[in-house]
């Protein structure tokens, strides 16, 4: 079996994307952050480093909760998506 990019992986899943993000970053905290563990810890690679700025794309989130556990800087305002929104696994 061939390897897949993250985009290809997430494209397999069904999502009902809300109009508002359920997870928000405090930019000023992320800017100062050294380890930037969120880049490793998110299994959907929702966190990206763009021109030395951490961005978060909530659309592909798998709702695991890893980022809020690992970020000890308090940069992540975390909640689940509103009821009915977000990922909907067909197999699970």
């Amino acid at each position: 079996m061939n390897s897949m990019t993250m985009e290809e992986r997430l494209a397999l899943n069904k999502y009902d994307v809300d109009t508002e993000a359920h997870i928000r970053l405090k930019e000023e905290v992320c800017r100062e952050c050294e380890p930037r563990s969120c880049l490793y810890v998110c299994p959907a690679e929702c966190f990206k480093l763009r021109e030395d700025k951490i961005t978060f794309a909530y659309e592909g989130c798998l709702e695991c909760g890893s980022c809020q556990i690992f970020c000890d800087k308090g940069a992540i305002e975390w909640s689940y998506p509103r009821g009915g929104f977000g990922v909907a696994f067909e197999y699970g």
Partner: protein
Amino acid sequence: MNERFDAIVVGAGPAGCAAAYSLAKEGLQVLLVERGKFAGAKNMTGGVLYGPVLNDLAPDFWKEAPVERHISRHVIAFLSERSSLSVDFNVTGSDEHNGFSVLRSKFDRWFAHKVEQVGGIVATGLRVDDLLWDKQRVAGIVAGGDEIAGEVVIAADGVNSGLAKKAGLGVKLSPENVNQGVKEVIKMPREVIEERFNLADESGAAIHFLGFCTKGVHGGGFLYTNKESLSLGVVAQLKALVENNLKSVDLLEGFKAHPTVKELVKGGTTVEYSAHLVPAGGLKMMPRLYTDGLLVAGDAAALVLATGRALEGMNFALASGMAAAETVKRAKEKGDYGKETLSCYEKLLADSFVLRDLKNFRRAPHFLENQRIYSTYPDLVCGLAERIFQVDGNPKEKVWQLAREEMKGKVSLWRLIRDGMSARRAI
């Protein structure tokens, strides 16, 4: 909604469904709330659902539930970079139904439907935002802008349980006590699965991997056969991932490309990619399980057993959900939902396998911190097997001699014995 429920159960996974089903069956007014657009939408597993517990609640459930295959083959496989050594236990052909592979999106949907069949109300697509308080006691939930009153709330809202936290009972999740699992569901024709895994009709295999699947860090790999798909995944401690600059998705790719695994998944098509956290800290991370008007069950209470071979959670979720229901029934009879009365929940769990297993295996999480389990030993056994099975035309050495040579530079005999002793104590 103005009525007052006897119980509001939050989360339609195995813990929540088991609790709601037990209560509704006895005629209690039950509301089961699920944030997914259907029960199971947010859930995935890298585990086997063991039968006996659910069978107590719904006899012969497997005849009607959408289970995948009953597990008749258990394999433990040690992986080095290019080889593997397996222990293969096989009872194919037996009609015992001890454990099942399941796909949770289907299974949980079925279970929530069972709750409705016995008169429970299931509200899906509803996220619970807060607890409703009456002075110091929990008196219901706030969801979708509505206040919904209940005599008692059962928080079965999973590993990231927000509700337990709001009541001051939350699990303290940390990178050390949480494992991250990622999984692919790989479509494959039924006949190919049965032939490739040497399975009779309806029977299935559960394979647990140690070693190269996590590049030697704390965790393991798994493969379960479903009816017409495979569940393939990797579970690794969150701390170990970040400390080693590893991403679990890369581990999964490496695992799939391993010569042994590659042959097992060959020709399949990945149809889903999911991720989930598993509380793996055992008794140490378990929160207080009840307070006035609230009980915590399943992953929300970190009721997961780490044995080194796998993490067993669904069974513990079911049993804790059932114990929570029993507690609520007794509370209703007394007409009192205070923590004195609800303390019976912990007693029920203490008398069952749930807390007994967690106590008995309380040293396991610490033992499983030993790096050698994931790197040195899998390499060692694969290396030794290679020495034993390879015939190179030179005079042969006895097995013990080969073992000592293989151990050289990897682990001392003294270290091996000490690890063996702690394994004996822990698992």
